């Protein structure tokens, strides 16, 4: 899957790794596998005959789990390094863990 993402989205290997990790975190195992399969088909030559509506849905179903927020997408266009903008939740303070008032 990582190689597909490198080729289709123009990502480096490290970036592809980051996005697959993120999508796995957002999705259950079977859902992730299903969306990967749909993405691969929709982005391949074999998928070209499929209706545009289906290809858009298949591509979006994985893309939106990899580029979740606005700043994720900014990472894709190089405004900020991809992957640094969206740290796992465990790395940011939880309610009550911040400094006192």
């Amino acid at each position, binding site marked *: 899957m990582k190689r597909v993402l490198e080729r289709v989205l123009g990502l480096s290997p490290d970036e592809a790794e980051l996005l697959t990790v993120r999508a796995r975190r957002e999705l259950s195992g079977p859902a992730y596998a299903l969306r990967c399969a749909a993405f691969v088909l929709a982005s391949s030559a074999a998928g070209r005959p499929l209706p545009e509506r289906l290809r858009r849905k298949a591509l979006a179903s994985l893309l939106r789990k990899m580029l979740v927020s606005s700043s994720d*997408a900014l990472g*894709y266009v190089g405004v900020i390094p991809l992957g640094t903008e969206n740290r796992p939740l465990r790395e940011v303070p939880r309610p009550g863990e911040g400094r006192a008032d």
Partner: protein
Amino acid sequence: MGAGVCGALVARELARAGREVTLLERGAWVSHPDQLEHGAHGGPPATAQPNHEGHPSSRPYPWTYVYGVGGSTLAWAGVTPRFDHSDFRIRSEFGVGRDWPISYEDLEPYYAQAERELAVAGDGEGLVPHPFSPTDRLIAPYLPPYEALSQARPTRSVGGRPACTGLDRCEMCPIDARYSGLHTVSAALAERQGLQLRPETAVTRLHSTAGRVTGLDCVSSRGDRSRLSANTVVLAAGGIENPAVLLRSGLDGPDVGRWLSDHEHRILELELDVSAGHGHGATPATGMSRLYTDAATRSDRGAVVLLPVDPGIHVTVELLEGLVSGERGTKLRERLTERFDKTLVLDLTGEDLPRADRFMELSPTKDGLGMPLNRISFPPDSAYLKDAFDHVTTDLPHRLAPLGARMGRSFPRAGGAHLLGTCFMGESDGVVDAHMRHHEIANLYVAGGSAFPTCAAVHPTLTIAALALRLGQHLASAT
């Protein structure tokens, strides 16, 4: 009735004054961790899902509100500007719309309190504003008055909420920094001062005799029915549910459910000769221009505020479209990188006038609790708003000419989150008086955005909160 920001603040003020308060909320208590896991719309479907339908003659419209303890502030961006002075007097100053029966000066002390309650960055006291982003600094000189965006995303830890870390997921803040009504309810319950919360309890109707509410019929998410009584009843369930319970109770004056307002947006993209400086703000939006809010032309077209926003959502949309059309790989990525580096994206929010053909009424179709669905009519923009957006679209490239600005795409973005005006306040007209007391039912108050006579151009939550504090303290001081 209603445990969003309005109901929570009114209830908290009354409980602190030693009153016995029962806070009824149709939706469930969904803790912040559970919201992250399952979304804000938690709890049993009967009491969690919005229960409206479109009017057959109207267009589909994405109404967005949340049933739950915290209400729609469980899923919002946290933008909290004050209204302008003139927003309370557009009939007097511009000859359109309606004046409010209160002035900015009446509300000013409560604005300050509300900013503290919500921990608004830039509250003028303890919390500094988020600094201007590079984008703000680039365009601010050309779009005065340009101000730090008031937002309920604190710049330091307050009341157990951490400081905003700019994660850009404000509508479901991952770290619970952005304010929600759940914060107020939680704090009020912890104070143990006569506040009782009943989640998953919907008010089906009010009973009134001789100009006073004598009882409230309720139904729980499990279908259990009960009747409550109270000395004073405050409806604080938003611009759809407030009129709905009045209509279900036969309190159907000519303005109940009428004059529904919302803020519709327009997104403008301007191509610049220089980098727009995206992605380096402390939060997704840190500045706002009021250049188009107070011109004499407001007699003819609405006020508009504009916020520069990151183009990330549009990047994803264009990436998807590129993939669908067969673009691939580094070529696609480089094209998007070039395009968005110099694209300034502005979110315009505009003022429209109250319209009789925008309303909610009761549907013959029933919801899961056996109550009528709320049927909403919301025809498209009036000329007043459209002309305002068109004027800004034409004028901006001239204002930003030193940056080489050329107008790119312009497209509408539906609102749906600001449910205003359906029980508006007036001295003699409307549904409630200047203290949001019902004109005919002496112990009934209809609070929140439904009481707005007009909607101004800016986001309404801070004004809702200020009005709630004013009402809570008014009721608490009454004998």
